[in-house]
């Protein structure tokens, strides 16, 4: 499901025009991005927490050429799923 499909689905559920939904979605994404950019964690009820994690610098060695590269630390966004979501998807059959 891509961006457009998501908008269509939400619009159908909320009985709102797609443009309106798109505006809302864009605004939400912008707000979330801003908060995450400030290093804050966003908690979404029954879904999970969007959090910023710091990956420490580490030394990577190219397995073939043995070139050692120092990877600098970086910040990444991670979704820590809530227990409710976990339980929901637990019984999901495994699709290959």
């Amino acid at each position, binding site marked *: 499901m891509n961006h457009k499909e998501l908008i269509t689905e939400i619009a159908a559920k909320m009985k709102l025009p797609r443009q309106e*939904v798109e505006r809302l979605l864009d605004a939400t994404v912008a707000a979330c*991005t801003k908060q995450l950019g400030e290093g804050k964690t966003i908690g*979404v009820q029954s879904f999970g927490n969007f959090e910023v994690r710091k990956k420490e610098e580490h030394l990577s060695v190219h397995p073939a050429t043995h070139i050692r590269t120092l990877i600098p630390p970086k910040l990444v966004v991670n979704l820590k799923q809530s227990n409710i979501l976990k339980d929901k998807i637990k019984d999901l059959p495994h699709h290959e």
Partner: protein
Amino acid sequence: MNKDKISSQEIIDQVASQLRVSKRQSEEFLKEMVVTIEEALLAGESVKIKNFGTFKLQWNEPRKSVNVQTGEEIILDGYNKVTFIPDVKLKDIVNEPFAHLEPLVLDDDNNEQEQEQESIIEESYDPLHIFTEQASEIKEILSEINALSSKNIENDKIDKNSEGDKELVDVIPDFIADNQSETAKENSETEITNVENNDVTSGNKINIPPVREINVPETSKIETVPEVKNPVTYSTSAEREIVHNEKYRPNETPDELAQPEILSTPDPFTEKVRPNKNNRKGCLIFIIVVLLLTGAFIGNYYLSSATRCWIKYTLLAETNTNKISKASKTVFGWFKDLKSWFIDDTVIDDEIGDFYTALYDPDSAKIKKDTVSIDTIAVVQTADSLQMLFDQHRVYTEFIAEERINEGSRLTLISEKYYGFKDFWVYIYEANLQKITNPDRIPTGTIIRIPKLDERLIDKDNLRCVQYAKQLHDLYVGLE
């Protein structure tokens, strides 16, 4: 991180204020969005939101694990997990604080330096290496020379043998010629033509050997045979048989029947000898040529290698003389120390004076020998004075400093700080025996005192001091 955590409500508020829509609508929208994403995920789909990221279900395979308390092996079931892969834009925004950092490709500079150090160490051992290499080379050369000389002897033997063969070979044609001339004489009674033939053939036989030396055996024979103007075409093996057949046919007397026997006996002999002679001469020439070539080659090679060896030796000798001069300098230094120690003792002083005069002798050869002898004497003397120091009971009354043991403090490090060498920590330990029970584990906060030590005892350049400290180290560490 708790203070940085914001709930969905704040996002709802922000969206509402930004878009000037009611909070209810905004909240409803967010809930719907989450629900829709969940539904899509539960349906096994992935959800992609532009500029934000992708939500995906990830299947984690069941895996083996161990119950920490019981140690039993348990199998963790496979499970699904929602993963979020942030979009490139979000990634960049989040990682802004570290955006300026670039992956750094490390050159193997450190390794290279280490290797350089290693190579330096190896180079420092090089003279020894060269010496051993040279020793092995010399051994090889000697063994090869021995082998070569033995080979030469063998070759000489072979030469002699071949010479003997030559003589034999030289004798044989005469013998054959005699034999055949005899038969010719006997035959001369019956037929003169045959005798002539025979004589000519025998003459041929005598003539052939010198021709063969020019290595044209078969052709010469064939060429010489026609000279006899014999209408019969001779093959090498059948030649004489035909001659003989011609001989017996006219004379079938019992005397002459016996003659073929006599004739036939020498003939196979000559026929056997001839090829041998031929081969041997060819072989001989070949062997001689090969020997000459190999001899010249080997001689050349060893001459060059010998010169190389000689050059190396001269170089080695130079380095050795340099070393010896260095060693003599250090010995001078020791003597100065000795002099300062035994100022009162005039006898030793005089002796040292003698040594000094000996050392300053311009004769370099004498210096070498003297330095060696003085070296040993000096070592013995310093050892004796040190032994006295080592043997006497050490009482620590003067202290130069106090040190507090912190986390990570080591007696060896303290020793290096005050005495300039790690191994002399044992004296600090001796001075603080009441406070330190285990030198490896000193409780933090302990204040130890650093004793003032005799300079001679903590001379890190003196091997004896270091060795003694190590002995003490073994003693104390072994006790624990």
